[in-house]
């Protein structure tokens, strides 16, 4: 067996790949791409929600949202660290994002217009993310799998707090319930798009599945998400904006309508409602924080010098 065959054999036996193990260059690159995209999504995902922290309707909602956004920052860090074990630096990762060479989840290019959107984001966006992340706790690259375990443990509160927000609105006034319905109308389809293109359109799926980088295909995860989410919408008493949505007794799954893939690709290519704003905000934060990073380093070096002088 050559090195690549030996590598595949270990993957097939469910032996995790660790940072210093031999791996095909393509496996390394695909992993970096996937983990980085995931990390960037966590960081960019802080923006639409961060916008609502100062406007949360109560202290209870405010501390929860603050904690959630802080978690997303932490998740970005776990993932960047996992990517860095593959030999790429943090600086390179961040530069790739800011130069538009790396992608992040398209969902964050939609605006959070109302308070109900914060509920919908937690329920649908985090719900869809969890679906994907739970399957990734079994991914073949050790550091990525470990980051996923930690993230999944923390994410479940995110989804519950989102659902609770919508539940409260749906039990409120007519206007509040309408606001909840409006948020479902706007977030449902983008949430389904989060799972990516259909399997027959997805370029990396086969290799990714063989190397167990991905454990479930896009369409399987999307179906799973629809199946668990529709009854939750029914409980809220609001309507999923899909006339073709119907329980299929034979399949034991919901049938649902065709996704607007033109919209999906438009947003991926940078033409979504908030692509430019998100990138500008990220770059601004990074550039305006540069002096803090430099000052902290200079201070640490100065203290180290002083310590050495005292010792001599």
């Amino acid at each position, binding site marked *: 067996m050559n090195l690549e065959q030996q590598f595949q054999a270990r993957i097939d036996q469910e032996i995790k790949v660790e940072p210093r*193990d031999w791996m095909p260059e393509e496996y390394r690159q695909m992993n970096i791409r996937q983990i980085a995209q995931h990390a960037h999504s966590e960081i960019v995902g802080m923006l639409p929600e961060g916008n609502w922290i100062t406007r949360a309707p109560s202290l209870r909602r405010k501390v929860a949202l603050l904690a959630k956004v802080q978690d997303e920052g*932490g998740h970005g860090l*776990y993932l960047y660290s996992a990517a860095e074990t593959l030999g790429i630096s*943090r600086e390179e990762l961040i530069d790739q994002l800011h130069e538009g060479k790396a992608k992040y989840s398209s969902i964050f290019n939609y605006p959070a217009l109302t308070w109900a959107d914060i509920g919908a984001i937690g329920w649908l966006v985090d719900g869809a993310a969890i679906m994907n992340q739970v399957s990734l706790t079994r991914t073949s690259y050790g550091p990525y799998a470990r980051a996923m375990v930690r993230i999944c443990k923390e994410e479940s509160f995110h989804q519950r707090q989102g659902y609770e927000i919508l539940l409260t609105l749906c039990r409120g006034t007519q206007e509040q319930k309408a606001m909840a319905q409006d948020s479902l109308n706007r977030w449902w389809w983008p949430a389904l798009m989060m799972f990516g293109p259909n399997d027959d359109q997805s370029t990396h799926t086969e290799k990714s599945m063989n190397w167990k980088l991905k454990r479930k295909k896009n369409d399987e995860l999307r179906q799973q998400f629809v199946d668990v989410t529709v009854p939750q919408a029914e409980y809220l008493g609001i309507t999923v904006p899909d006339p073709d949505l119907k329980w299929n007794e034979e399949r034991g799954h919901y049938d649902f309508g065709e996704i607007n893939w033109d919209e999906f690709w438009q947003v991926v290519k940078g033409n979504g409602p908030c692509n430019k704003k998100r990138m500008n905000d990220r770059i601004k934060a990074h550039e305006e924080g540069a002096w803090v990073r430099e000052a902290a380093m200079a201070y640490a070096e100065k203290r180290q010098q002083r310590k050495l002088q005292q010792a001599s």
Partner: protein
Amino acid sequence: MSKDWPLWEVFIRSKNGLSHKHAGSLHAADAEMAIENARDVYTRRNEGVSIWVVESRHITASNPEEAESLFDPAKDKVYRHPTFYDLPDEVTHI
């Protein structure tokens, strides 16, 4: 040269009586900041009572390619395990 702060490995003791266990890594300008950041990212939900940080470049790791020669010899030394020794059932507390 990279403008990144140095990389640190973080070890957390989840409660007294247990040893510190690797939790992950992070960037920080110095050890003190590494502890503060580790507290913020790795112990937000009571995961720890104590933190160790060590700069990643100070860790020496065994080479995975030498794993066979390092660890395989232990496999054929079954006499290091208590079950290797045959004792009659009547003998107790041993």
